[in-house]
């Protein structure tokens, strides 16, 4: 049965056969969409998708009031299912990796990003920017900001950083955003604007 957004919300807000029918239709759509969305993950099987869809239906019903009708309901529902699936896949991939393993020795060494293929002026500019950044990292960032930023740059997913810090993804995003802002403002105070930074590292 085809439903518009209002019908989806109405049916999912009821009890009885209307709700059961809507949940059954939503479940089938999410299974199909997740298979397409995760088609590049070869180890994703039917059982994984079924589990994710089950969790997704609960989450979608919980958040029904948050649906603002600015997209198709099924698109919105699919975004929630994808987030649950991806979070689970990342957890599986990183479950045996500790935050300590990722950030221990993961320091910022400016000399690593000096490119000997560049001309002398460009090399000096890069080095000055990187030295300034190193100073800001050491003096301005909190321990948590430094840890979250380094872990993220080493490829650790925010959900996983959050799990180790006893936090959540939004809080980790705030930590790294605050760290980036401090670095940006520190570079600006030294005379380097965003466009200078992008130009110096465009090669």
């Amino acid at each position, binding site marked *: 049965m085809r439903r518009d957004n209002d019908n989806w919300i109405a049916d999912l807000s009821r009890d009885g056969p209307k709700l059961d029918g809507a949940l059954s239709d939503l479940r089938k759509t999410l299974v199909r969409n997740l298979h397409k969305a995760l088609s590049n993950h070869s180890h994703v099987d039917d059982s994984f998708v079924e589990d994710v869809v089950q969790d997704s239906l609960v989450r979608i019903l919980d958040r029904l009031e948050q649906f603002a009708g600015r997209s198709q309901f*099924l698109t919105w529902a*699919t975004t929630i299912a994808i987030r649950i699936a991806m979070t689970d896949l990342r957890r599986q991939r990183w479950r045996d990796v500790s935050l300590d393993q990722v950030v221990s*020795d993961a320091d910022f060494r400016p000399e690593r990003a000096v490119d000997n293929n560049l001309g002398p002026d460009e090399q000096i500019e890069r080095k000055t920017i990187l030295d300034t950044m190193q100073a800001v990292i050491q003096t301005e960032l909190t321990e948590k900001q430094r840890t979250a930023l380094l872990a993220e740059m080493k490829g650790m997913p925010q959900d996983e950083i959050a799990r180790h810090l006893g936090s959540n*993804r*939004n809080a980790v995003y705030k930590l790294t955003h605050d760290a980036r802002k401090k670095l*940006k403002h520190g570079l600006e105070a030294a005379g380097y604007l965003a466009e200078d930074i992008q130009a110096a590292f465009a090669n």
Partner: protein
Amino acid sequence: MPMSKHEIEELMRLIGLTKDSEINCEQCLALVAEFAEQELAGRSIHDGLEAVEHHLSICPECREEYEALQRALGEMEDEADK
């Protein structure tokens, strides 16, 4: 292990893109369905959705989820065309 040249360059890219005000992953999730439908329809992105576009350029997880959504939506549209 110290950050590699590529990782340092990626950090510089992110710093260059950083804005004082950015939406977080939860706020992105609330808006990304609308953003994806606009993009798929080839419509220009209005002001309220520019923050989503910016967040997707910064956040690798949301970007990965958005690319997955695009795969699902692309095929949803193909089916609707049949």
